[in-house]
């Protein structure tokens, strides 16, 4: 599964993109974030305030409860500021 990070989430995590294999027990976006935070300080920093984190599963907006089973791409980013 591919994980993508954008804007300050990317900068705080210190990574733009990575391929990971999630533990089988992880079923939703909240689970992915919890697992990432356990992997290193950089993730703990990036995901410190979940109110500021948005996500997309397979390029569609999701939230903490969105299932990740079978997903091929999960992205994390701040609230969007385009336009």
């Amino acid at each position, binding site marked *: 599964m591919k994980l*993508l990070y*954008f804007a300050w989430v990317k900068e705080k995590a210190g990574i733009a993109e990575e391929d990971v294999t999630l533990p089988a027990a992880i079923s939703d976006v909240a689970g992915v974030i919890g697992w990432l935070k356990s992997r290193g300080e950089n993730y703990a920093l990036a995901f410190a305030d979940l109110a500021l984190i948005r996500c997309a599963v397979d390029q569609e907006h999701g939230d903490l409860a969105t299932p990740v089973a079978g997903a091929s791409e999960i*992205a994390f*980013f701040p609230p*969007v*500021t*385009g*336009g």
Partner: protein
Amino acid sequence: MIRVGPQDFDIGAEVRALTAGRTDIGAVVTFSGIVRDVPLELEHYPGMTEKELARIEAEAHRRWPLQASLILHRTGRLLPGDNIVLVIAASAHRQAAFEAASFLMDYLKTRAPFWKKEERNGEAHWVDARESDDEAMKKWE
């Protein structure tokens, strides 16, 4: 129609391309966004950006009788006075064109995966999302 990339645009040429040879379009509303004050860098999520803009455009066509539409968003580094975004809605009547263009912008502002990084006094910082944009979305729900 969706277009994402670094190229600048010409509003007149885009409107002509959408309306050329048609006599069923009576009203065309365009919105263009322009960089104010300071230079900025636009990051986006290639792949999702195009899909999300296409979803937003399809939703506008579901809600209003539109003859044609365009969402065009620039990426990369932009300077004060530069164009950032262009939205066009064309319909038989003006009410639909105005509402659809406004809807497209409100949705784009809160759902399209773009992030602005501004350069102020030599320092770059990510722009915070505006609560007023979330508020603007609510009127379409």
